């Protein structure tokens, strides 16, 4: 077996990206059409993408592997969509929170079909599940630190239990993000308004009777 030259390796990497793109478009169509990724077979994916089963397996170990690299890129995009949240003033108004929440929901909605494929596949693929849990745990930790900083500066109610509050709010956010998949632009706006309203009242309103 000849060792591939760097250029052959580059070609192969490019071909892999090309095939991944074609396969992911098929996944996106099927999932957006209401199918679960769990119920879509590799044969079906390969056929619609115009490649053979053997070609699929020469580039990807399994269905989870197909999604893994996409997930890493998607999580980076989501993280970038959170920059507005990080840049909020120390004592944010309701409008500040709203302006920070909208891009996160909108970004997720664009990713939602493949994210739901990831979530479905993660129930049976341990490594994908670990990737998702790591991302969620990271977000929860960031939110916890955000709350703790706010408590130090006196913006957030000091009686709030930061780790548990972050856990519950992340649970709410996770599910709210998943709801964006089927939301119309109008209901997405209503959802963003309600979410920022709740978050603002919980963290910053500080007007408890």
């Amino acid at each position, binding site marked *: 077996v000849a060792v591939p030259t760097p250029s052959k390796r580059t070609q192969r990497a490019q071909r892999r990206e090309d095939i991944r793109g074609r396969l992911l478009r098929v996944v996106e169509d099927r999932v957006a059409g209401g199918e*679960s*990724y*769990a*119920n879509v077979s590799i044969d079906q994916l390969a056929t619609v993408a115009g490649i053979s089963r053997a070609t699929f397996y020469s580039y990807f170990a399994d269905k989870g592997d197909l999604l893994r690299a996409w997930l890493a890129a998607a999580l980076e995009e989501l993280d970038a969509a959170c920059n507005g949240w990080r840049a909020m003033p120390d004592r944010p108004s309701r409008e500040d929170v709203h302006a920070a929440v909208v891009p996160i929901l909108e970004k997720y909605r664009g990713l939602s079909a493949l994210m*739901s494929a990831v*979530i*479905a596949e993660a*129930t*049976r693929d341990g490594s994908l599940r670990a990737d998702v849990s790591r991302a969620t745990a990271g977000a929860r930790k960031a939110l916890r630190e955000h709350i703790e900083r706010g408590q130090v500066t006196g913006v957030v*109610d000091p*009686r*709030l*239990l930061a*780790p*548990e*509050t972050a*856990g*519950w*709010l992340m*649970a*709410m956010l*996770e*599910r*709210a993000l998943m*709801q964006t998949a089927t939301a119309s632009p109008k209901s997405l706006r*209503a*959802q963003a*308004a*309600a*979410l920022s*309203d*709740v978050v603002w*009242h*919980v963290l910053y*309103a500080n007007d*408890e*009777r």
Partner: protein
Amino acid sequence: VGQLRREAPQLVRRQVIARQLLPAVGRLLEHSTYAELSIEKMAREAAISRSTFYNYFADKGDLLRALTAEVMGTLVDAARLWWTLPPDAPKEDLRGALAHLFAIYSPHAALMRAVADSTSHDAAVREEFLNYMHGGREGVLKWIRRGQRATAFRADLDATQVAALLDWMFERGLSQLAGTDDEHNPIRVVAAVTDIVWKAVH
């Protein structure tokens, strides 16, 4: 009428058998996923025969659907204590009602995680699950509306949207923060969610 007479006891028996299987399946789920469990194993753990199982359930998916109904029905009942609180109820009563929901949920945490997992590939379980989630949302919504009418809760609150958010927060949050392990302190977990619900509506 004859058919109804024959079918109704069968449905009641089915729910009775599901109730019998519930703690057994819950125990097994502490150590494995639902996908890994065989019908033999579940039947043995519940001390029922394989043939009894197949008398009432077509397959594992069918059982999970029955278990979803059983558990989520119980949870919706437990949550009623919260939804029927008077609008001027003090925060301590809200905390008590949510502690009750948490206590009823905890022994079923593993099963509820299995249910949530299978909603991504089992349409029948998903439908059952979403029906109960809808029931939950309606319960929260009525509680919020009553509070708004009594001017105890914020009038500018989007009751429908916030009810949905709280409903989903409990579904996801309980599955992560409740359970029989000692990872989370129930008192702190309940105190935190009480603060969130309280601040969300007041």
